[in-house]
Structures are given as C-alpha cells and as structure tokens.
C-alpha cells in the first residue's frame, strides 16, 4: 500500500480510486455542523446502523487499525482487497507521519529556561490529524465497548461501573442515555478518563501517543543539525487565530477540523488548544527542591491546553501537566497514534 502521510490534504481523492464505493461511502462522511456548546439544547444522536457483513461492520465502526493489523482475519472475504485499499487510503487521510526526532521534557514544575530536562529520542510514528470526535466514540459505546473487559486494564474493572453519563448509562460524562449531542458530533469527545481513552484506542486498533511522542509532534524537533523546536505547532509566536485557548475568546470546544491554519507541519490539527490530550505516560515531575509532585491517585500526562487555558504558556508544545487518571473533565479528549506499518 502507498501512504502519503505528509500530505496536508484530507480525503481519499488523492489515493487509489479503485476503493469500493461502499467502504468509501462509509468512511467519508464529513460531519460539519454549527458550533455549539453543552449549554445548547441536547439533541440525541441517532443510533448508527451497522452492516451485517463482518468486515464492512468494522469499517463502519472505524476500527481501521484492527482491519489493517489483522488482514488474515478477513482473507476469504470477496471484497478484502478493495476494502483494504480504502482503509489504507483512509489511514493515509486521517493520520500524519511524525518523523523521528527529539523531545526534552522539563523535570520541574518551575519550567523556565535552564530547568533540568530529560531527553528522549522518538521513533517515527503515525498520529491522527484530528482528535477523536463524539460521533466516533458513539460507535464504541453503541457496540458495548464499556462491557468488553479485555479492552480495559484489569486494575480498572471495579471502576467501570462509574463510567456513566448524565443518565447513568455507560458513556462519557456529558452524554445522555448513552447518546452524544448531535450538535457536537464533530467536536472532540470529552468527559472521558484516561482509561476510557485507552480502551477506545485498543478497540479501534490504535494506541495513545506517549508524552515524548506528543511533544515531538507539536514541537517538530526533527533530527537535524539545526536542532530547532517550535513553541507552538505553527511556529514560535502565539496567534490566537490559530488555536482555541481562553485568549481566543470562544469559551467552548470547536469542531476538530477547525483552525487548519494552526496545523503542525505535517497537517496535525489542534495540538495546541481546544481540549487537552490524554497521553499514555505517567506524570513524573518535581518541584524546584526536587520533591516529587503527586496527586491523590495515579496522574497521567495531558498535553496541549484547552479552550479554557488562561496562560498561553500552558498551551505550548513543551508545557507538561497532568490529571488524575480517573478524572473525566469537560476539557480533555484524545487522539490516536500507531506505529508505522511494517511494509512502510
């Protein structure tokens, strides 16, 4: 298969035109609605209709990583080649290549110039251009993702019962009756804890980015003699027309496709602002005296800032912070990552 991860154009028009109409139609449904907030009327999303065919069902559910990583599972399917091409094209459209590079993570919460850092070398990997949306997460909820124990870390099983929406149904905290507000279909899913984000990733065949990977993607510190990094994904200067933070004056989430002018060089959107992003990494920082900073429970690193981040310095590519792993706030979502396919 041929990938085109550096393309900033989204869509399948640039790739194989032989992909089946069925698979393409299922995958290519841009959802664009006016901006809305949780305060607006709640309009429950319609249940998704799933094909009976096992392979097309996975396509409809957008479990692209599962299809891509398990081709042998459907090798007898009559349309496997076409579907596989369509899935490859969609991965190409939805993911961007983050080249190998460096990430220097500040070690102290007082993270001014000269603070101690730990250096990481990151391998090339794929990162989704957009955050996971409510509409995408709905599919995970609809097929019973919350009751598939193998998707969840064993230590969290006793807490699964707490992952309820406003009406005590399994789902993100701000949903109702297991449905998202369809006005927010293309907004990032929020009200999910680290474990819910990780379970979705596993279910879809992907993973969360690690903290060094996330920082590499946002700071674009590629391996070169120049050794430069970006303060923001688009460059070094804050520009509130390129991101959704408090100073942008919006005060709520925006669709995941917004702010194309704030993209990283490889076309990944909203690494700065809109909502914080869960990473796979545990939080390890100290205060200025070297005392570890801990929380009431396991803290996982979150990165990137959100629509309510007051200080622009806290929405930069290098700012580190964390949240309790079971917290389900209104301003944290996630995006998908995956290792490079072996065949390149």
């Amino acid at each position, binding site marked *: 298969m041929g990938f085109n991860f550096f393309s900033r154009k989204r869509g399948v028009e640039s790739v194989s035109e032989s992909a089946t109409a069925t698979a393409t139609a299922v995958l290519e449904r841009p959802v664009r609605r006016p901006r809305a907030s949780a305060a607006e009327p709640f309009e429950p999303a319609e249940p998704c209709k799933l094909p009976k065919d096992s392979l097309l069902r996975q396509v409809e559910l957008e479990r692209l990583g599962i299809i891509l990583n398990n081709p042998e599972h459907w090798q007898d399917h009559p349309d496997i080649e076409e579907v596989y091409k369509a899935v490859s094209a969609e991965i190409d459209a939805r993911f961007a290549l983050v080249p190998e590079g460096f990430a220097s993570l500040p070690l102290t*919460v007082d993270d001014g110039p000269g603070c101690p850092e730990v250096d990481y070398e990151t391998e090339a990997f794929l990162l989704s251009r957009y955050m996971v949306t409510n509409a995408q997460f709905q599919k995970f909820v609809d097929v019973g993702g919350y009751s598939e124990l193998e998707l969840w870390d064993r230590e969290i099983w006793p807490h699964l019962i707490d992952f309820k929406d406003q009406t005590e149904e399994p789902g993100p905290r701000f949903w109702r009756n297991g449905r998202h507000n369809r006005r927010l279909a293309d907004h990032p899913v929020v009200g999910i804890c680290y474990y819910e984000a990780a379970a979705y990733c596993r279910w879809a065949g992907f993973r969360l980015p690690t903290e060094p990977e996330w920082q590499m993607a946002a700071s674009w510190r590629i391996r070169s003699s120049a050794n430069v990094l970006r303060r923001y994904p688009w460059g070094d200067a804050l520009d509130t027309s390129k991101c959704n933070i408090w100073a942008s004056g919006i005060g709520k989430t925006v669709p995941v496709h917004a702010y194309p002018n704030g993209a990283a060089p490889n076309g990944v959107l909203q690494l700065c602002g809109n909502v914080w992003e869960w990473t796979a990494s545990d939080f390890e920082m100290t205060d200025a005296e070297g*005392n570890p900073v801990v929380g009431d429970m396991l803290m996982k690193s979150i990165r990137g800032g959100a629509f309510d*981040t007051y200080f622009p310095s806290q929405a930069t590519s290098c700012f580190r912070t964390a949240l309790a792993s079971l917290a389900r*706030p209104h*301003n944290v979502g996630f995006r998908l990552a995956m290792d490079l396919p072996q065949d390149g």
Partner: protein
Amino acid sequence: MSTGTTVTTTPSSTFGAGVECFVCGAANAVSALQCRECSASLALVHDAKAQEREPKVVSIVGESNVGKTVYLGFLLDMLSQRAGDFEAIPKGAYSIDLQQVVISHMARRQFPPKTPMEADRWYWAYYQILQKATNKWVDLVMPDMAGESLAAEVATPKTFRVINSLLSKSAGTILLVDAAMAANGSAHPDFFALKMISYIDAMHRAKRDERITTPTAIVLCKADHCPECFDHPRRFVQANLNRLWNLTESRFANVEFFACSVVGSLGYAASETDGYVTPVPLHTALRGVLEPFQWIIEQV
C-alpha cells in the same frame, strides 16, 4: 458640576486640608496613605475625588484558604483583558498589584502568598467598569480581605472596623464557599458561611419580616473537585450546605448561586526533610469566574 459625592474634605482645623475615609468616615490628614482608623488605602479617596463620584464596594468574603485572592486576582485580570461584556479601567497603579501578584504566581504554578491579617497590608483594587451592552459605568472598589481577619471580625464584631465598614457599605457581596470540602462531607464550610451570612444579616439590622436586598452571590469554589456543582449549584447548596441554604432563603431576597474553578489540576509536593506538603496548581482552567461578578453588576 453637581456630583452627589460623599467624599468630603474635613475641617482644616483638624488635619489641615484633610480627607474623610470613604470606608469608615474617619478624618485623616491629606498626606496620609492609610486611614488612621480602619487602615483603608486613602489613595482610593483621592482617586474617588478625582472621579467626582463615590465608588461602590463589592466585597469578596469567605474563609481562609477558600481562594479569595486567586478569585479576585483572576477576575481583575480577566476584566482588564475585556472578558465578557466588560471594559475595565484601573484607577491607580495600586489597583493592579493584586492581579500582578496572582497572575505571576499562578503562571509559575504557585499559589500567591497568604493575605496578611493586617488591613494596612491588604490589596485594594479600584476599577471603573463598563458593561458594554447597557453602556453602564460602575466604579468599584474590591479589597482583598484576609480570611483570618474576616473570621475574627465575625467572631468578635468591631475587631476589624474596616471589615464592618466595608460590608455595611457593600453594594454587592460575593461569598466564596469551599465546595470540595463540603462535598467531602465536612460541615465546616457550611458553618463558616452561615456565620458570615448571619453577621451580614445582623449588621443590616433588618426586622424579622424584612429580607436583605443587597445582591449576594454564593460561589462554590474549587468546583473542579465536584463537577456536579456546575450542573446544579443551587441543588448542591441545598444538599451539602443546608444551613446556609435555609438562612439565605429566610433572610436574603436577592441571592444567587454559582460554581467556579480556577485550577485545572492540583498536585502535591511533599518535602522529604520536614514532610511539609505544598499544593501545586499544575495548570489553570478558568470556569465560572466572571458569572457571579456579572450578576452582581446587573444588580447594582
């Protein structure tokens, strides 16, 4: 020009061309920096004289460590960045000190130092606020009072004359309550708020069948620890701060409930030598800071 101001000059026989403290009314020498009686900043008086109108006082009260300084600091900073529908003009550099201290500390992920008990060391903010939608200008004085001083005054009235004077002059009151502590089952926030409200009630000396009409915003702070506050602040107060709820319902005619949070995530650093635990505000996430103020401004 007829001004209607009550900022007056005292007889020169007493203090030369003296000034009257607009908080407590005491006469002071014109060169004095602080009121000799209540320690209020006299810069406010000079600035009020220059404006030729008396400012309104909005008091932000609550117990120690509830977050009054952080709340007020962020509120002022948001106003000076034209948040919401407001335009704010600080009168005098002293009005900017508090927000500068709060913002510079919080940006470095430290809480600002505790407000000292002594009134002569409090920060005072004097702002002209324009609500653009209504084209309404309001001159506001907002002092950052220490929680310990408030507690002492409530326990023994007239201990801090400045607090008594400020609260009696207040055109609006914002009472901050620790929602996180209340949600954990502690009755302490309820009792402190009850004392504070009963103090204000007693100060107004209203008759039994009269209810106090001064707008009073009850703000559930640290609501990020109990997000249900944001959904239904009124219901939260009724369930978790029932004593406060009952008293406000009986005695206050113009009360509204809000939820607010400033810190997005809180960590703790424990010193390995002395075991002292320092809270670390890992990042800010402002929510509900402006709304109580907006409501107060609409009422005054």
